[in-house]
């Protein structure tokens, strides 16, 4: 019986999508609320079942449930099954996805209220949740790839939700194409794996990697290909450019897809194939280096953004970098534990930003200020999440971040120092956002994201939006405590405890946490000095470091490099235009040239058909002579 439950978990949101798009949208469009209720019901049920599965997995032997497969395709040696697997990693991901999705769907009832695309919104959100659940449960590469692209599609559709805005349409397209560049690597890795092993089954591939059948350069190339897919999805350097633009989508979408779940799918993918990475030193180092570098690289851009969602977007990229660093340096449990905690506090931050927008109508922090009085719940929960992401004891971010720092300290000192600097930056940019948004006095506001609000009275958001904030705030405090005694590591790492776990207070006897706490504290203090107490002038500092300020605020000119230079000049106006010119002038020109040549030859030969018998007789005589000469010479 148990093996039906994963299928039900996956199918519930899928049916919700089908019901909304094929029944509610065409026939009951005048009852928009229904779509929301169906979605929330389906995901709520999936959430409850996910907890049941977690309990089952905890007690199952080897933390793994056996679920029978279904044959999907059989051609010669190519045999593809579809099937689900539930192991410790999946169980954790199921919890993350369903909880965040459920809170976001409830929140959206308030946030998207009155939007004309209400049904479309919930249909896509349901489809996304179904794909995400399928992605974490898929037991073979082809099935996983199906959902991998599926979440990408939903991301595309939801970023471009307000498609009439050119910026949203551009951002959606950019997100899809940039991630597809990474998927190219992933697909190549899948083909390579099949060529070498003849199987797509994840369990079998794990076995082959652990048994040492799959080794050497093969393994490294496969791992790097898979990682390329992860780099695209998780917006790691150098494919990070799409995520900040993706903020054009509705804010709950950013919270669910572009903070908590889909972008973390890259991290999940590396974790899913961790046995492959583990056996290739080079692959593991690449993951750590790309992750560590992205963490600090994105954080620098987060320092100077004025749009609160963009700050959070860069923060997400940076935190995803941390997770990759954790995977590369410490292992599966460490990376995934940060994913687990991050999902809650980052979703909370985004929902908080949405709540602020609901009231002020803007995402520009320069127009906000003083909201702590008008929006006490939003303020309190946002503050908790900020403390958590900054890594302040004893909130959840502290526990997972310090594990990453410790493991990188042992593994790669350079990355450790970079990560330490990033801790400082993270605390600074988060509290810069907190002080600019909630501190000081109110500075204006602007027209709302969806234009349904007239005059702007600052107000707390409705209950339907505040309750999810509170739930996520509670999780942002407590979720980290799961690993205080190393239980989480034990569960995911299958028995080997390799983090420094010395208890709730015991951890403070270790020097390393103190260093990171001091760094985070000074980041908060600097933000306070600059943006709240105004001991230091932000403008003066910006001027003093103006080259850096330009570098960060222009995002290192990566957008210009990719869009204008590489895509615009080199490809579209260069190579592709060359091909187009060659096609119309070269290839087709040759075709028409042959045709014209034939016609011209016909016109020329036509002159011979003069109708004068003497000429014909002459030609006949010449021909006969020629034939006779030939006979004489060759015959």
């Amino acid at each position, binding site marked *: 019986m148990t093996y039906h439950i994963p299928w039900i978990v996956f199918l519930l949101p899928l049916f919700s999508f089908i019901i909304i798009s094929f029944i509610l949208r065409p026939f009951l469009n005048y009852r928009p609320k229904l779509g929301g209720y169906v979605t929330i019901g389906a995901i709520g049920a999936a959430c409850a079942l996910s907890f049941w599965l977690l309990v089952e997995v905890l007690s199952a032997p080897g933390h793994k449930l056996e679920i029978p497969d279904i044959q*999907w395709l059989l051609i010669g040696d190519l045999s593809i099954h579809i099937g689900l697997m539930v192991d410790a990693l999946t169980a954790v991901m199921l919890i993350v996805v369903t909880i965040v999705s459920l809170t976001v769907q409830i929140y959206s009832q308030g946030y998207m209220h009155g939007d004309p695309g209400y049904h479309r919104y919930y249909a896509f959100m349901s489809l996304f949740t179904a794909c995400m659940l399928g992605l974490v449960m898929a037991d073979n590469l082809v099935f996983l790839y199906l959902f991998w692209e599926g979440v990408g599609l939903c991301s595309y559709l939801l970023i*471009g939700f307000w498609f009439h805005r050119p910026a949203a*349409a551009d951002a959606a397209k950019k997100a899809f*194409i940039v991630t597809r560049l990474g998927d190219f690597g992933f697909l190549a890795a899948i083909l390579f794996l099949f060529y070498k092993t003849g199987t797509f089954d994840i369990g079998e591939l794990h076995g082959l990697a652990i048994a040492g059948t799959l080794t050497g350069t093969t393994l490294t190339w496969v791992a790097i290909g898979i990682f390329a897919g992860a780099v695209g999805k998780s917006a790691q350097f150098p494919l990070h450019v799409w995520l900040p633009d993706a903020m054009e989508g509705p804010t709950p979408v950013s919270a669910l897809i572009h903070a908590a779940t889909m972008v973390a799918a890259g991290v999940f993918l590396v974790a899913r194939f961790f046995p492959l990475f583990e056996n290739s030193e080079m692959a593991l180092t690449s993951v750590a280096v790309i992750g560590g570098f992205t963490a600090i690289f994105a954080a620098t851009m987060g320092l100077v953004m004025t749009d609160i969602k963009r700050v959070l977007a860069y923060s997400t990229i940076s935190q995803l970098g941390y997770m990759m660093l954790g995977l590369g340096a410490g292992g599966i449990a460490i990376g995934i534990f940060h994913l687990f905690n991050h999902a809650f506090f980052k979703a909370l931050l985004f929902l908080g930003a949405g709540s602020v927008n609901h009231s002020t109508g803007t995402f520009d922090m320069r127009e906000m200020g003083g909201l702590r009085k008008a929006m006490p719940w939003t303020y309190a929960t946002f503050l908790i999440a900020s403390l958590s992401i900054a890594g302040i004891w004893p909130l959840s971010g502290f526990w997972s971040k310090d594990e990453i720092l410790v493991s990188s300290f042992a593994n790669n000192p350079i990355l450790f120092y970079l990560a330490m600097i990033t801790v400082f930056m993270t605390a600074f940019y988060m509290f810069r956002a907190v002080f600019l948004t909630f501190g000081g006095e109110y500075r204006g506001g602007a027209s709302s994201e969806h234009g349904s609000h007239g005059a702007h009275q600052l107000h707390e958001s409705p209950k339907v939006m505040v309750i999810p904030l509170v739930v996520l705030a509670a999780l942002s405090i407590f979720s980290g405590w799961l690993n205080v005694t190393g239980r989480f590591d034990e569960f995911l790492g299958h028995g080997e405890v390799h983090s420094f776990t010395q208890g709730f207070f015991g951890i403070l006897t270790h020097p390393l946490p103190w260093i990171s706490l001091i760094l985070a504290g000074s980041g908060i203090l600097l933000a306070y000095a600059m943006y709240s107490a105004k001991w230091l002038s932000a403008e003066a500092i910006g001027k003093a470091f103006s080259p850096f300020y330009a570098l960060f605020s222009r995002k290192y000119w990566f957008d210009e490099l990719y869009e204008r230079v590489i895509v615009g000049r080199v490809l579209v106006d260069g190579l592709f235009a060359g091909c*187009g010119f060659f096609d119309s002038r070269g290839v087709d020109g040759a075709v028409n040239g042959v045709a014209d040549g034939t016609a011209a030859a016909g016109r020329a030969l036509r002159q011979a058909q003069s109708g004068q018998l003497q000429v014909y007789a002459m030609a006949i005589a010449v021909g006969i002579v020629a034939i006779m000469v030939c006979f004489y010479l060759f015959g």
Partner: protein
Amino acid sequence: MNFCYLTTIVFLPLVGLIVIALLSKPQPKTVKLTALIFTLASFALSIVVFCLFDRSSGIIGQIQFEEKLAWIPAINAFYHLGVDGLSLPMVILTTFLGFLAVLVSWKVELRPREYFIWLLFLETSILGVFCSLDLVLFFLFWELELIPMYFLISIWGTGRREYSAIKYVIYTLVGSAMMLAGILSIYFTTGSLNMMELAGLAPVKPFIPLTAMFFLLFIGFAIKLPVFPLHTWLPDAHTDAPTAVSVILAGVLLKMGGYGMIRLCVSIFPEVALNYAPWLVLLAVVNVLYGAAVTLRQTDLKRLIAYSSVSHMGYVLLGIFALSQISLTGATLQMFSHGIITGLLFAMVGLVYDKTHERNLERLGGLARQMPVIVVVFSVAGLAALGLPGTSGFAAEFITFVGGYSSAAFEGIRLYTILGVLGIVITAGYILWMLQRVFYGPPVEKFDGVPDADNIEKVCIFSFVGAIMLVGLYPAILTDVIKLGIMPIMKLVGL
């Protein structure tokens, strides 16, 4: 005596044609309904054949529903029809698109009687190509198809329609001439015209080299597929043809090239195919990447879709000459999948053009608000074209890639396959750019009040979507049949 399924399927459209011709002064509505009934009947019968088709593994490679009558005894030519796993999907594709083409043409007002006569004639000739097992019969049907195409493009087309029609006919005739030479050389060396018998019957004492015979046939098919650099007739013909003809042209006519390559080039000359596989796969990669690059530069909606066909048919060529069982199955599935996807894309372009009278991407925009149904279906078609999992496009391309990558045909096939995979990134680029240009952005004032799809159009485009999703979610429905046709060919190739 058994019921002659195939003869009935092939000639039902022709009977419809005769009925239309005999009606005295029919209303346009009557003509359309007649055409609809006969194409639908043909489609329904082909589904019956599909269901009756014996899939048990004991009959691998055996022709089913065979009909054989002496036709021209002097040259050993027979009226010989039959289907196997390779041709059956093509027959279904043709009857399916033939039926939908009538629906697509529902609004034709210019000389409807003649129009539908030519359209039905076209369907019969294509069905004949896929069902024939005799080379002379095959060639006859192959040539017959040109006549209706010429009239359909030059009378009901748009733009430079006479130029495009004549270009199409002459280009194809050049290929046909070579093909005829190939067929004659095969006949004179073996004395047989039976396509199934010839497979595996290596000609003894050929009077021209086998390679020459192979390429005579290959060029004929390459023009049809089309293969770079023989593709430039395609964008002109597609762009200027009326919508339904573009649907048929992209949907099934191109497949005659791929079908011919597998049925004749690979089956009769497996060694030559193997020898030249590296070059032909290289051409396939050029087709994919170069086709995609040129597509990205198009500003005419219809021309863009036309060029995308060049790119997508490159995958068919790649699958065929990767010469593995998986890749050939993938190539055949890709032919079917491309038929329904591009057929739908052309139908959608036709709808957009009908309603806005605009095909230039620079001047379109913001139509999503005005056309909620069209935008959804167009997006589904576009996503299928860019190979999104869950659609037939992904299933076909993925099988082709897996087959190509794991093929043992020659060293370097893996590099070529990976280069081909790169095409999916460029495809995503032009498809999404096109969707954005047509549908997204602020609504354009001059398109205010343009209607969405009406009910007949909805039936038509939803049928396409259903087929795309069915094959995408459960490709085994076709591959289980296709592989029966591919296995005996693989035995001949011997890899």
